[in-house]
């Protein structure tokens, strides 16, 4: 199902979109042996009942076919990797999910194709305010849909020439294969 960390990030951002968020921030940071993933949004948030159901698993409002295991799996993986998990939310107050991991833990999943996933997020969040921040192993990236919209005028992020450019740009900045 979700075996790589980039798919968890994608899942969390899709949760934010499903919560009608306008501002979404994705933070990936490495501090010594710790990896911190944080996704915050200003969406509709969750009541304590919904939050409890989400944490138990097999609960989703995204679509009838959604499985509803994204959050429980992320929590399990973080805790298994000597890390922590927190979900802060309240109705009307948005949601912040933070997961930490010990990087040297043998069970730490790979990032997958992080550059490609960030590109997917940018395309998916066009029209919303998405900020992505990545700081790991001397590689740094700060990028937002707002900044891209400013540079692109009316041209869409999904324009083939823009996609091509961002693939190369993201690969150069954070490494890995894009698509």
């Amino acid at each position, binding site marked *: 199902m979700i075996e790589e960390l980039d798919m968890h990030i994608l899942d969390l951002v899709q949760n934010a979109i499903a919560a009608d968020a306008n501002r979404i921030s994705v933070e990936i940071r490495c501090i010594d042996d710790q990896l911190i993933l944080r996704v915050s949004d200003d969406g509709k948030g969750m009541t304590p009942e919904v939050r409890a159901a989400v944490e138990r698993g097999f609960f989703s409002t995204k679509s009838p076919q959604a499985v509803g295991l994204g959050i429980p799996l992320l929590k399990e993986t973080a805790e298994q990797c000597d890390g922590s998990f927190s979900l802060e939310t309240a109705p009307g107050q948005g949601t912040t999910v933070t997961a930490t991991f010990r990087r040297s833990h043998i069970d730490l999943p790979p990032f997958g194709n992080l550059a490609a996933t960030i590109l*997917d997020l940018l395309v998916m969040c066009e029209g919303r305010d998405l900020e992505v921040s990545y700081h790991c192993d001397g590689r740094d990236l700060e990028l937002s849909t707002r900044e891209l919209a400013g540079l692109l005028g009316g041209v869409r992020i999904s324009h083939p020439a*823009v996609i091509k450019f961002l693939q190369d740009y993201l690969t150069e900045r954070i490494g890995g294969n894009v698509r």
Partner: protein
Amino acid sequence: MKLEELRKIREKAAKELTLRGGQVRVKVVVGMGTSGIAAGARDVLAAFLDEIGKRELTDVIVTQSGERGLASAEPVVEVHEEGKPTVVYGNVTPEVARRIVAEHLVNGNPVADYVIEVRE
């Protein structure tokens, strides 16, 4: 690479837009949820972009969305065409994507074998 290079791309894209009078005839939406990506949606998107670029179909835009709710048929692709019903394709591979461009977008004949839904 500098992000500012996007300004050049913008100028070029704006010129293309003027050439075709700003008309978008067809919108192709590739479902890119976690299950779609696991099923190969990224390769499908790349095939669409490549084939549309090769054929210089400047009145077609390709975009992507989150979960479409049809995980059993992913990758899922929707074709929205002005004044026509929306055609939803399932189990799309890069080869099928190229067929959709040639047969549906260019010649107007949907690739029937892969159509899973038609929405008015």
